């Protein structure tokens, strides 16, 4: 199998699993327990926290483990919006559903929401943000990098504008963290969501970075875990895995970016050369090293994926969360693409485990598949 859906989820790195194993076997203590077994679990969590914090450029006591990236988004957005004085909140039109649906929920509950548009490459214009800010704006949340088209936003600029208006700034960094340099201090964000399973860590563990002093309500009520701010017996093995995955991701990142981008660029060039009537979605430079998103005229995404799957190629058509949904991608629509094109995009997301041979193989399989589906399509001109 050729796995090129690393934006949906990544394989758990064997070295990460190794570090998790003690906590799946003999080290089963509850970190809140006072005895030795509990204290060891607690120490392991604190070590993982320090590791994630160091990669984020944060203090350890600003890093809170959650049960997923989505939970981090829900906590940040609902918690910060409810703690804000104003009832106007701003986000972008191309956020992940974990952010977008929180905003929609808040919109139904008395908040006034502005969805910033993006240009045809998927970039938020800082001037649009400036223009959207009102005296009663209480929260701005704009994703660091998009999960479908890989566009990287000018976060430090956007955060600066937010702070000029004394408005807290959150960013969904689930796709950015561990893939491109992402330093909360350099960027100046007040809160950031990340998720372990996007960078070789386990599924079911996320982090919300909360800058000290940021006003945010509680999301998960209960026990006193995570400095009393996120209840639940800790997923010790998962947290330990996240800590190690973050450290591994940071290690030699520049080299990995080079390698992965070269796979990406070769794939893009080959496809655009060999297949007519297709276009690259997103920005040509401001994009995640592993992300490719290409629309093919006249064909629909799911059929493409199923035929690729039959050739042993695992790719995606945008966000994994919405497969099974009938709606076209809200991200592609925001770029201004017509509906039928928004249904037909292919997302290929590379990791450092992929090779140039795989790139060539995917192109080789893709060409006849696209041709065949076009032959089948009543839209083909």
């Amino acid at each position: 199998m050729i796995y090129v859906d690393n934006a949906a989820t990544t394989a758990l790195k064997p070295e990460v699993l190794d570090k998790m194993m003690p906590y799946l076997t003999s080290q089963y203590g509850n970190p809140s327990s006072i005895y030795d077994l509990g204290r060891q679990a607690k120490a392991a969590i604190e070590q993982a926290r320090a590791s994630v914090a160091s990669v984020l450029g944060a203090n350890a006591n600003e890093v809170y483990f959650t049960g997923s990236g989505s939970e981090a988004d829900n906590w940040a957005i609902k918690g910060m919006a409810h703690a804000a004085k104003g009832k106007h909140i701003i986000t972008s039109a191309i956020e992940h559903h974990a952010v977008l649906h929180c905003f929609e929920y808040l919109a139904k509950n008395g908040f006034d929401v502005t969805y910033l548009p993006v240009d045809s490459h998927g970039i938020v214009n800082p001037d649009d943000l400036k223009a959207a800010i009102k005296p009663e704006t209480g929260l701005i949340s704009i994703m660091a990098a998009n999960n479908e088209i890989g566009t990287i936003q000018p976060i430090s600029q956007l955060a600066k504008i937010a702070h000029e208006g004394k408005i807290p700034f959150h960013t969904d960094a689930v796709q950015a963290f561990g893939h491109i340099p992402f330093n909360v201090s350099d960027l100046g964000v007040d809160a950031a969501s990340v998720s372990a399973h996007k960078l070789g860590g386990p599924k079911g563990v996320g982090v919300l970075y909360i800058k000290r002093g940021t006003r945010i309500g509680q999301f998960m009520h209960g026990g006193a875990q995570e400095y009393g701010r996120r209840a639940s017996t800790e997923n010790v093995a998962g947290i330990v895995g996240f800590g190690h995955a973050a450290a591994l991701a940071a290690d030699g990142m520049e080299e990995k970016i080079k390698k992965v981008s070269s796979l990406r660029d070769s794939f893009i060039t080959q496809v655009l050369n060999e297949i007519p009537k297709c276009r690259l979605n997103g920005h040509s430079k401001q994009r995640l090293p592993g992300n490719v998103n290409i629309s093919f005229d006249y064909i629909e995404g799911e059929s493409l994926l199923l035929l690729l799957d039959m050739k042993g190629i695992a790719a995606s058509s945008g966000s994994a969360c919405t497969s099974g949904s009938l709606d076209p991608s809200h991200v592609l629509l925001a770029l201004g693409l017509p509906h039928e094109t928004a249904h037909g995009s292919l997302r290929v997301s590379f990791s450092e485990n992929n090779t140039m041979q795989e790139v060539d193989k995917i192109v080789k399989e893709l060409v006849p598949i696209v041709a065949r589906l076009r032959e089948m399509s009543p839209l083909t001109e």
Partner: protein
Amino acid sequence: MLYSEKVMDHFANPHNMGEIEDANAIGEVGNKKCGDIMKIYMKIEDDIIKDVKFKTFGCGAAIATSSMATDLVKGKTIKEALELTNKAVVEALEGLPPVKMHCSVLAEEAIKSTIADYYKRQGIDPEPIVGTSKSCGDDCPCDE
């Protein structure tokens, strides 16, 4: 979302895919917004569907239901073809995931609308025979 083996079979090797040059009935249903469009060509002689072919833009289920629905009406009389229900298509495919049921509805409608076209071409009002199509234009919501 899991497709049955039968669905995968019809998706991977669809029957009756293509156009009929001298078709005397053509129907098209679905819309671009929803991401599923089925176009059906028929060659009807003596009230019998001698040949039928389809072209479909859509997901795996859309292609599989097109394949199965055309299979089910091929060689049948118009009357028999009009009795085809989406349920029969689903059953023949050994089930469809709930979110994909609308594809079978689309397939049923595609057959009906093609037969309607056959009547129209002969100056016969198809409505009393075929009924009103549930199929809708470009503005209808995608969920049924």
